[in-house]
């Protein structure tokens, strides 16, 4: 949110309000209470409870006496296979973010430089529309394309009838493909917001001074799109490393990520304290990423306002 709201004076002049209404702090509190009360019960207390659980040796609903322990946070040491899974999750996250950034930057560039008016508005809505449809259904739809004998194979066989199957469902690239499909609209939007503000005159000036397209791209467009790219990258990377249904549906047996491991702790293994500790480790990584890029983020939201 832009910081300028801070500087805004209170709406009603103090003289007008004082006479005939409840103390202003009371009405303000009454207006804020439903929202923040709800968030307290549904978000903040649950997160605090889970944090407490992550330090317990067992779920307190069970029979075993509850003792404080750090053992779940040492899981990466005591259960080394988790390190490999965490690494795989990060690799999937990086590939997804990288592909989204490359595809999204050029799509935003094309939108900002080669379209205008109604056509641009329609294209933007068309690009963003899938983002607000059910992610699960979109992931499911990729199984129709990627499976053996699916749409991809049908396409291949129509040009090369004797060919084998190129369907790659239940592989890691399938997971990345499904995730890129899910988060690309976000990246296009954030890059577009950054690029659309670029003045034509800047590019014309660079051209008239003899800059080639490559120089314009790397010295003018990319630096100016950087805030948008960073915002988009964070908005992609964070949910991707917490994803579990995409790896399950598109990855099958190879789709084991931190997301699926955490989900298992809550739905299959019923080791809630371990699941909680893994969740908070993941949250710490995410917060570290936010903190690292918060400067860039602040500049980018400042640019958007």
């Amino acid at each position, binding site marked *: 949110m832009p910081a300028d709201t801070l500087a805004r004076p209170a709406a009603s002049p103090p003289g007008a309000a004082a006479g005939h209404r409840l103390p202003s702090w009371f009405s303000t509190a009454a207006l804020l209470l439903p929202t923040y009360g*709800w*968030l307290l019960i549904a978000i903040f207390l649950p997160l605090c409870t889970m944090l407490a659980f992550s330090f317990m040796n067992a779920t307190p609903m069970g029979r075993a006496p509850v003792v404080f322990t750090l053992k779940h946070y040492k899981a990466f040491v005591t259960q080394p296979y988790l390190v490999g899974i965490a690494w795989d999750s990060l690799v999937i996250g990086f590939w997804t973010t990288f592909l989204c950034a490359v595809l999204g930057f050029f799509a935003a560039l094309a939108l900002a430089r080669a379209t205008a008016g109604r056509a641009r508005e329609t294209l933007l809505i068309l690009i963003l529309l899938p983002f607000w449809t059910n992610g699960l259904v979109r992931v499911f739809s990729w199984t129709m394309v990627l499976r053996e004998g699916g749409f991809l194979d049908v396409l291949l066989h129509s040009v090369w009838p004797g060919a084998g199957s190129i369907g790659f469902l239940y592989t890691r690239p399938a997971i990345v493909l499904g995730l890129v499909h899910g988060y690309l609209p976000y990246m296009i939007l954030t890059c577009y917001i950054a690029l659309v503000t670029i003045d034509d005159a800047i590019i014309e000036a660079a051209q008239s001074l003899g800059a080639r397209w490559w120089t314009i791209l790397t010295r003018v467009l990319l630096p100016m799109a950087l805030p948008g790219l960073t915002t988009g990258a964070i908005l992609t990377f964070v949910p991707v490393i917490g994803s579990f249904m995409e790896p399950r549906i598109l990855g099958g047996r190879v789709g084991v990520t931190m997301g699926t491991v955490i989900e298992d702790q809550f739905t299959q293994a019923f080791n809630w304290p371990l699941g909680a500790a893994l969740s908070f480790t993941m949250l710490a990584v995410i917060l570290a990423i936010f903190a690292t890029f918060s400067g860039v983020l602040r500049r980018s939201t400042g640019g958007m306002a």
Partner: protein
Amino acid sequence: MTALARFYLLAILVFLYLPIVVMMAMGFNESALYELPFRFSTRWYEALSGNGQLISAGVNSVVIALITAVIATLAGTMAAVALDRHAVRGRTLLQLLLLPPIAIPWLITGTAMLVFFFWTGIGRGMHALLIGHVALAIPYVVLVVGTGLKTIRSDLEEAAVSLGSTPLHAFFAVTLPLLAPSILGAALFAFAVSLDQFVISYFLSTPGFATLPVQIYSAIRKGFTPEINAISTILLLGSMSVIVVFAIFARPGGSRDKR
């Protein structure tokens, strides 16, 4: 260069829509094993009408989305008004507190809700899902209505007050009508957020009470038939039309045009 750019945009659109179109088409294919050649049939849509589990899950989804939209819009609009028009101490902190429901992966929020609701005895089921969905939708409502409020000049309301109106009456008579498009947009947004929510619902539903996405997920994992394509198509078209209506009502600058 322009031609290349347009071709690239077209390719991106094909990438975004191709799997969805293929999925929808297969819902109209006769074969239960998704075999080609394509033979048009509506048998999977007919089969849906006899699938009580999917129908009741669909009804659950719509009911929850409606209630979520009402509660989230009321609470969120109140908070947006307070944050924009009142002198609030700690405004920055309050605005930051709206971010966790959006920024923390739903896997973590969802499991945290599961743990807390189980521990406190709130349990799982419809009421638990409602608590979760409303919490996820409120921040979006505050953001959408807050943006709308910024385009409405507060001195209109002040003028009404100085002409003898009570602040409350001035708000309802002056600001609220101007704000109506934003509020309606926010309500549609909240409805769509709830309708498409899967992760939170997955952790909070019970064997007896599930929403459509949860039911679809378990069907996908257990082995599915084109019936899933049919119900998915209906769900996609439903949320797409909600968002298109939203785009028309709350287009950036839409409320400004009406001023």
